[in-house]
């Protein structure tokens, strides 16, 4: 909860700061997306196989040209899975019977760029790439007894999607896209928290 509040404050401060920067020739664009995340690879096999409908992403993008925009993106996703009771051999002499629950919250903060190859089209396809840090909050419960671990890791992202402007040549519009987020997590034998994500949202100019 403390991490959530800190990150929420970060979002608000960042955007208020952006709102004060009104003297720019090209307006900043705020993008807000609902995010549906699907764990893949080691994340899916070792920690959480359930898809997560609990997430969002927000970004501030500066349009360098009609084709290229770059900025900062922050997101949040909550993953949860409860496994049926099983017996775990936790040592040569020890067995634990428990229902294990894994609860993972990720907060990626990335530098991101978007490229729009078809500027004259009504529907503007784009490709994107980003990289940055990932605040990871991992809670694992044996029954009702849990341990919490917080780490910062790397996250890299590649994505594709389309943008439908509210009006021609506008940077405001609807967004629909997908990303692959590569997030290594080398703790306790785990490999990664990588995921495939689907997003839908809107963008609008900030002046």
């Amino acid at each position, binding site marked *: *909860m403390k991490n*959530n*509040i800190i*990150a*929420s404050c970060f*979002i*608000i401060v960042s*955007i208020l700061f952006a*709102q004060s920067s009104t003297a720019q020739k090209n307006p900043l664009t*705020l993008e*807000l997306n609902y995010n549906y995340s699907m764990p893949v690879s080691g994340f899916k096999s070792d920690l959480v196989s359930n898809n997560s409908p*609990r*997430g*969002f992403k*927000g970004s501030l993008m500066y349009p360098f040209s009609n084709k290229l925009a770059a900025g900062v993106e922050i997101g*949040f*996703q*909550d993953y*949860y899975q*409860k496994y049926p*009771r099983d*017996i775990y051999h*936790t*040592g*040569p*002499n*020890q*067995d*634990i*019977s*428990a*229902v294990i*629950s894994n*609860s993972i*919250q990720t907060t990626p903060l990335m530098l991101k760029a978007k490229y729009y190859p078809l500027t004259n089209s009504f529907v503007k396809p784009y490709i994107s790439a980003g990289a940055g840090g990932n605040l990871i909050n991992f*809670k694992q*419960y*044996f*029954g*009702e*007894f*849990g341990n919490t671990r917080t780490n910062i890791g790397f996250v890299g992202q590649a994505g594709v999607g389309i943008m439908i402007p509210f009006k021609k040549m506008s940077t405001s519009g609807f967004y629909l896209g997908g990303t692959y987020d590569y997030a290594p997590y080398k703790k306790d034998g785990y490999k990664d928290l990588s995921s495939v994500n689907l997003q839908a949202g809107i963008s*609008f*100019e*900030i*002046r």
Partner: protein
Amino acid sequence: MKKLLTNGWLICLAVLYIGCNKDPLNNLNADESRIYITDRDSTVNFSSFKTYSISDSVAIIDNGKSTRQLNDVDLAYINAVKKYMNQAGYRLVLKNDNPDLGVNVNHIISTSTGVISYGNYWGDYGGYYDPYYWGYPGYGYYIPYAYSVYSVKEGAISVDMLDLKSASKSDNKKIDVIWTGLIRGSGIFNTSVADKQVESLFDQSSYLKKN
């Protein structure tokens, strides 16, 4: 208007961020909240024992101090341990009849630090159960295997199995603790669930079987 729209989205973002967490503890029922931990001496052949005796009351261990009591819950746990020891093929005898195994049932309430170390628990074990009770005055207890440390925020039930057969031949006057079972979680201090809790300990300890 745009500023109003932006601030509205900011509030939505903050609410989403705080509200998006799914609390794992709210998704557990009482049965799912419980854990069962068993440790054993892997050098021991549990099928070599034939008889056992069980203490007639439960040790209430509260921050390193102990008292004895026997209420309905304690009796339910003692009877459940008898039931599953008998099902495993061991024969209940009086403690004066030279049992091969001694069994103690304990109710651990809490620790002042919120963390219980089995090492500390066993450090005082002679205070909870004087070896004299099992017919071995002047003896101590010995755990030949390492225990882990778990955080404890509420009570637990533990069942300990002692090797009395070897104690009678021991040169160093030690009673070996060869098996322990620990039950933790919501609602365990209830007569209606005692049998199921003890059954779980024995289910995951299939080596507890007489030939």
